């Protein structure tokens, strides 16, 4: 075949464009034209296109919103940098100097990052302020609260933490060690489950988007069957025939991703006030974080990529069937 092409070129019969640069620029110009034409064909039937964009947008928005929720929950729990706290309740007999001394000595241990000492007096004052039982407390003749050393361990491994708890419990001045290990394990498990769930939902919905776009492109191919036949009759290559449909898929995907992005921003705006009020009762500086610029670009890129992929699937399945008769 190369023989034939070469010959027909030299005979001047079907010379296309001379020079690689000329060919590349006309190729790029053709791409530009096809891209613009396919977009304007979508905008010409904007109501139908909008429906498709909305469906794709909703399907994409759902896993994105779930993912953002997960990120935000991770951020709240990241308050302790993923590291738990251990509270050492000291025996009542421990003097404040001994207790402070213990807190300082604990700081030297490599498995402890920081300690903070709350004296029995301070603990009582805090309790009085927070609980509203101030009157009841003043009737007691002695402070019922022990001094507490709060420890921030330097590791997160649950097995090591258990060992650390045991060794701390053996210290002379320590009465009880409170360490909510199960809560942490549960939270980690929930976060992990959430990640898997988001991944699974995301996968299923991405598959759905692929099918939606594939089906839409299949209909477009069916609508333009006679055009495809004619293009093939006058020498259109497969990639020439394929191109407008790939661009169609690209615009469907990109438009859908844009809708998804708007939906995500909208729901964040809608949720941010109550969520932040709730979160700030735990932490002062919490703000609901949405997709950043990079995340937004990833969303748009993923949408466009899904669009092209869906179109490719449809095109490879249906274009070969259409041959001029």
């Amino acid at each position, binding site marked *: *075949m190369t*023989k*034939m*092409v070469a*010959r*027909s070129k030299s*005979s*001047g*019969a*079907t010379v*296309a*464009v001379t020079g690689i640069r*000329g*060919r590349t*620029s*006309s*190729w790029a*110009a*053709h791409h530009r034209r096809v891209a613009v034409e396919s977009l304007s064909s979508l905008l010409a039937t904007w109501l139908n296109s909008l429906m498709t964009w909305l469906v794709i947008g909703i399907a994409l928005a759902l896993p994105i919103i779930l993912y953002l929720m997960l990120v935000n929950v991770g951020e709240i729990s990241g308050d302790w940098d993923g590291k738990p706290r251990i509270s050492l309740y000291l025996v009542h007999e421990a003097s404040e100097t001994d207790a402070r001394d213990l807190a300082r000595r604990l700081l030297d241990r490599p498995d402890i990052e920081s300690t903070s000492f709350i004296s029995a007096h301070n603990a009582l004052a805090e309790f009085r302020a927070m609980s509203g039982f101030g009157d009841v407390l003043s009737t007691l003749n002695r402070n019922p609260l022990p001094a507490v050393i709060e420890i921030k361990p330097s590791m997160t491994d649950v097995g090591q933490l258990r060992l650390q708890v045991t060794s701390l419990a053996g210290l002379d001045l320590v009465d009880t060690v409170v360490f909510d290990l199960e809560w942490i394990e549960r939270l980690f498990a929930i976060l992990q489950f959430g990640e898997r769930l988001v991944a699974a939902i995301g996968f299923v919905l991405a598959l759905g988007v692929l099918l939606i776009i594939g089906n839409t492109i299949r209909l477009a191919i069916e609508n333009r069957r*006679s*055009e495809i*036949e*004619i*293009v*093939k*009759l*006058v*020498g*259109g*290559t*497969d990639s*020439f025939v394929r191109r407008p449909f790939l661009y169609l898929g690209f615009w469907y995907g990109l438009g859908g991703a844009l809708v998804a992005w708007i939906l995500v921003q909208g729901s964040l705006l809608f949720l941010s006030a109550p969520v932040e009020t709730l979160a700030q009762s735990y932490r002062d500086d919490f703000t609901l974080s949405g997709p950043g610029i990079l995340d937004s670009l990833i969303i748009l890129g993923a949408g466009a990529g899904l669009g092209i992929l869906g179109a490719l699937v449809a095109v490879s399945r249906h274009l070969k069937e259409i*041959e*001029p*008769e």
Partner: protein
Amino acid sequence: MIRFDEVSKRYPGGKEALIRVSFELDAGEMVFLTGHSGAGKSTMMKLIILMERPSQGQVFLEGTNLNRVSRRQVPWVRRSVGVVFQNHQLLFDRTVFDNVALPLAIAGFKHREIGRRVRAALSKVGLSDKEKQFPVTLSGGEQQRVGIARAVVNKPPVLLADEPTGNLDPELSKEIMDLFHQFNQVGVTVMIATHDLGLVSRMKRRELKLDHGRLEESAP
């Protein structure tokens, strides 16, 4: 330019469209392909542009054995053959200009070159003033001439026409035939399938006559 070597074509279902057809067409020749409807005229043209493959035998185009042309290479064969279809095969949602420009767009011509060549082809078929119109607004004869302009716009060495005067009155038919004659004069190999025998006898050209798939040749 075109050579058939013992070509047979049997369609699924057993219909024998062509039976051991052999002939050769030199570059720059103009021939008529005649015969009753269903005699195999269309099949012959379809074999040349690879819309069909022969059941037996070989078809050569410009020395290339078309049996050896893979599916991916088919477009390049079609670009070297201009075809005028009986039912015009125009894109009805595109202007006359865009219809004629299609083969050039496919071949990757530059925008300016496309405009120049399309206008030349349209002026050749006498439709210069219709380039912005849509095919539906044209008469049958004008649509046929759009089809001819599209077939010749990228200057193919071979021009095939399947019943180009099928639905036209004698005067229009003559105009169309004159056009093909002009293309032949500048060296294009022309093959016209028709059952308008009066026209064929007036043109005094070589005639390939098909009868139930068999070829009977007659000199002018």
